[in-house]
C-alpha cells in the first residue's frame, strides 16, 4: 500500500492535482515523471522523510510498492 504522505510528496513535486497510485504503478505511467524529473522526485522524498537513499537502492526500485518499502525500511533504520 502506498501511503498518502508518499502520494502527496510525489503529486506536489510533479505538480499534479490527482493520480491513482498503486503498488504496481511505474514511473513512466505517471505524467511528468520522466528521466529528468526522476531525481527531483527522489530528492523530494528524501527531504520530506529526512532519509537518504543509496544509489543502488534507488536503482533496484521498480514500482511504487517497492519505493514505499524502501522508505519504510529507511524509517525503521532511523
Amino acid at each position, binding site marked *: 500500500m502506498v501511503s498518502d504522505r508518499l502520494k502527496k510528496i510525489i503529486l506536489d513535486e510533479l505538480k499534479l492535482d490527482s493520480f491513482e497510485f498503486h503498488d504496481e504503478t511505474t514511473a513512466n505511467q505517471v505524467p511528468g515523471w*520522466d*528521466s*529528468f524529473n*526522476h*531525481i527531483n522526485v*527522489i*530528492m523530494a522524498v528524501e527531504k520530506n522523510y529526512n532519509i537518504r*537513499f543509496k*544509489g*543502488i537502492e*534507488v*536503482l*533496484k526500485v*521498480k514500482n511504487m510498492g517497492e519505493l514505499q518499502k524502501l522508505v519504510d525500511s529507511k524509517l525503521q533504520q532511523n
Partner: protein
Amino acid sequence: MFNSIALSRFLQYIDFSKVQQLFIYDPSDQLYFSTSFFLFFFLALLFFYRMFSKSKNLKIYTIIFFSLFFYYKNSGYFFLLLFVSTFINFYFGSWIHKSKSSGIKKLLFVSVLVIDLGSLIYFKYTNFFIQIINGFTSGNIQLLNILLPVGISFYTFKAMSYVIEIFIETMEPTNSLRDFVLYMFFFPNILAGPIDRAVAFLPQIEGDMTPTKEDIGRAVFLIMSGLFKKAVIADYIGLNFVDRVFQVPLRFTGVENLLASYAYTIQIYCDFSGYTDMALGIASLLGFKLMDNFNIPFIATSIADYWRRWHISLSTWLLDYLFKPLQMSFRRMRIYGSALAIFITFLLVGFWHGANWTFVVFGLFHSTYLAVSLLTQKFRKAFWDKLHLSGTKFLKVFQILITFHLVLITAIIFRSDSLTTARNVFHQIFRYFHGAVFFQWITGYTQVFVFILIGYVLHFIPKSVDNKIKNMITASPIYVQALLLALMIIVVVQVESAQLQPVIYFNF
C-alpha cells in the same frame, strides 16, 4: 541404375570447392539477412527447428549451432572471443550472486566490468588513442594491426546487462550455461542489436519456444517491411546519391548537399530500422520476442523525446545503467548534476559508435542539445505560455521541425568520414546553395527523389496502421503469406542494382 547415373552427372556439375567456400569465413562474402545464402541458411534452420519440435533441448542446441556458424561466417575466428566473453560473464554473474560479503561482490562486479569494457576499448579504440598521443607528442608510435570483431559493442552490452542486473539484484542468474549461451549467441540480434536484456530474454527460453499464428503473421510483416526498407530504399539512396555527395561534398552545390543530408537521415533510419525489423521477424519465427528499437523517431518534439524513439535498446541501456546512477551520485548539484550526467552519457554515446572524432562531436552535439534543453525548460514553458501557444498543434509542428533539423545536423557529422568533410558539407549549404539546381536534380535523380519520399512516408505511418496490416497478414492463409514474402524478395532482387550494402550499424 539410371538414378545413380543421373546423380553422378548432376554431381559433376557442382563445384564442390565453391560449396565448401560457402561454409568458410570470407570477409568479402558475409552472411547478411538480405543475402540469398541467408535464405537457405534460415530455411535449413527452420527445417531442423520444426523436426525437433518435441525436444526443447534439441531446439535450443539447433539455434546455438546455427548462431555460431552465422557469427563465424561474419567474423571468422573472433567467435573464440565471443566464447570467452560468454563464459566469463556467466561465471562472474553466478559468483556475484553467491558471494556473501558485499566487498567481494563489488570486487567481482568491478572486475567483470573491467574485463568487458577493457576488451571493448582494446578492440575499438587502441589505434584511436595511439593517434591522439602521436598528435600531441608529434610521436610516431606504430599503429597496431587490430581488427574489430563484428557486433562486439552489441554483445558486450548484452553481457553487461546480465551482470549489472545481478549485481543490483533485479534478476537472479540463470543456472543453465546452455540458456546463457543461447542469449549471447542468438544470431538475430548478435551483429547489430537490438541490445536485448537478459532479464527479458532468458524467461522466454522457459516458454515453449514455438511461434503462434500471430508470431508468424508478425514475422512475415516485419521481414517484408525490413527487406523493403533496407535492401530497396536505404541501399538505393545510399549507393546512388548519398555516397557520391559525401565522398566529395565540394563537387556539389549546397542544395545537393542539403538534399543528401535529408536523404542520409532517412537512409540511416531505413537501414537500421529495416535491419531491426528483419531481426525481430526472424526471432519471431523461432518463437522469441525481441525488444523494439524504433518508434517513429522523426515525430519527436524534443531531443529527449527523439532518444526515447531512436535506437531504444541502446538509449534505455544507457539511461538505466549509466545516466541514472550518475544522476543519483550528482544529485547534490541538482539540475546541474543532471546536465553533467547527460553530458557524460552522450559523450559515451558518441564514443560507442566508433573511434573517430566525428562520433565524438556527434555525441557532444547531442549532449549540448539535451543539457541546454534541460536548463531552459522552465524558461521555454513560460515563453510559450505567454504567447498562448502551449499545447497547440502549431507549437507541436514547430517543435517537430526544429527537433528534426537538429538531428539532421548531427546526421551530417555522423555520415562524414572526417570533420573536414562535415565542414565542407555545411560550407556548401550555407555559402554555395544555388537553389535553382533543385529542378535539375529532380529530373536527374527522379528515382532517388521518389525513394526518399517513400522512405519518409513509410516512416510516418502510424503504429495503428502497421498493426492493421499485421492483423490482415496473420488472418490470411499461410500460402498467401509465403507468396507475399516471395513477392517482396523478387522486388528486392529487381531493385538491387549493385552489390549488397552491409548494415551501417555493423561497424559499431
